[in-house]
């Protein structure tokens, strides 16, 4: 436990020294502000940038609800562009340690592989969720200001469930890092695998529910205030996280 704490603390201090908390948060704040602003002022923007020729915007178009705007911010911006940037930010989470010899120094101490992998998971999950939460809260503020009120508890529940998905993505990056040494290849593979789990939804809804991406459905339903009692997807997501970590543990022991 002490080793887990020491290692996690080092991950967080490193992120602070590299200003990761600041630039990632700023990035998510920009993403969080952009969606509600564009949705609200699309016609004004098009008019001002001179790109409205030939485009007719229906003045009677329905105004989206704050829930719909929040959903498009998270699903459209955070879970696509945001996810790619997050994965790029932690593509070296194990590769850097391995290439510098740091991993060998750590593992020759009385440190279990479990503590080492859990510290990576925890450290990068905290960094990611901190940035996402800041961006999401700012987005929430803008959305309720521009589109009307929305239940804060539902929003928090959404963030909580979304954090399981992020935990899964970090565990996936850890697993892939034990197969591949190149950070770029780790990032590309993790992005591709994460997008695959999101895209399953379009192909087979049943498989999607059984995949770690199923938790995204449950999270989104909290935003849309749709009754969804498929809490099984939390267990599925956790099972995949455990599977990723166990597999990574096995790989590191063997090679």
């Amino acid at each position: 436990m002490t080793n887990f704490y020491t290692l996690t603390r080092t991950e967080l201090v490193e992120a602070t020294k590299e200003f990761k908390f600041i630039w990632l948060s700023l990035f998510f704040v920009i993403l969080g502000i952009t969606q509600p602003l564009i949705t609200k002022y699309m016609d004004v923007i098009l008019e001002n940038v001179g790109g409205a020729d030939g485009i007719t915007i229906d003045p009677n178009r329905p105004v989206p609800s704050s829930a719909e705007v929040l959903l498009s911010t998270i699903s459209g911006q955070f879970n696509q562009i945001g996810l790619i940037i997050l994965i790029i930010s932690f593509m070296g989470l194990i590769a850097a340690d391995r290439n510098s010899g740091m991993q060998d120094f750590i593992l020759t101490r009385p440190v279990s592989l479990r503590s080492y992998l859990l510290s990576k998971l925890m450290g990068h999950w905290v960094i990611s969720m901190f940035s996402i939460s800041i961006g999401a809260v700012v987005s929430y503020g803008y959305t309720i200001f521009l589109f009307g009120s929305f239940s804060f508890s539902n929003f928090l529940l959404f963030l909580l469930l979304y954090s399981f998905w992020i935990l899964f993505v970090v565990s996936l990056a850890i697993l892939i890092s034990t197969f591949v040494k190149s950070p770029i290849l780790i990032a590309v593979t993790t992005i591709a695998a994460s997008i695959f789990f999101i895209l399953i939804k379009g192909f087979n809804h049943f498989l999607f529910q059984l995949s770690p991406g199923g938790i995204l459905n449950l999270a989104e339903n909290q935003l849309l205030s749709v009754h969804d009692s498929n809490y099984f997807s939390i267990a599925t997501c956790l099972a995949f996280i455990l599977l990723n970590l166990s597999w990574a543990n096995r790989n590191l022991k063997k090679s």
Partner: protein
Amino acid sequence: MITVEKLHKTIKKRKILSDVTFSVAKGECVGLLGPNGAGKTTLIKCMTGILQHEQGNITFNSTPIVQHKKNIGYLSQHTDFKPWMTCEESLFFFGKLSGLDKTFLKGNISAVLEEVGLKDKGNYKVEQLSGGMKQRLGIAQAILHQPLLLILDEPVSALDPIGRNEVKKLIARLKKRTTIIISTHILDDASEFCERYIIIKNGMIVGNITEEFQKSDRKQILVKMGNVPQTSEALKSSEVEHVECLSPNTFLLTGAEELDLQKVVNDFAAKEMDITSIEFYERGIEEIFLEMVSDT
């Protein structure tokens, strides 16, 4: 102290280590020699518990090695630390991972930094250190918890002559109080510290060389002559089968069997040859190593 028995290790279906058996006694300084890709680093990673092996045993004082991580200090082939940490912070981090007490660490870190010659660099960030300094910091983290066994993987191979000299001096000092295993392919460095050499080739132990072994091969005699003989054939006798001219007045005599030094001296005296010096030829570790790892 440490015993490796019938060790086998396969990585990605490729046999890296095969039936590796050897032991190192307390106080010894042993060189683990082998060409690149021989399996030295994999063997060391198994010995330090980083990698799991499929078959065989590695024991430290008769108990499995994994229970003795606190007693092992390790310097990896690639030594780099978190660049944003200072030397003191790096050592504190590794000390905490070794389970050392905060109070003990505070006192010991400055002592260890002094030992490795980085006393005044405690507040320097790792990114400000030269290659030699980083390697000394690597040794500092390896000895911080006062291990009984020190395993150094290629400690000087990546350093410039100044850095090598600094690290070699440090190893020579550590050798007096710790059991050391040094993996290297630079034989001159190994011969400065080691009393024994384990030679590994294609994942197998092909030689276990002691200083006695180097001296024990008495089939060759090195002779220096005062007067240069007209032909080297003149140096042949019933015992000496082959004569090799190393310089105009230095010859290497080789016999089919072990040579009798006194008999050779008497032979030369009978032929009224002027001998300046005569001694058994002691083969260097490089010569023995090349012989053992050569494919021919």
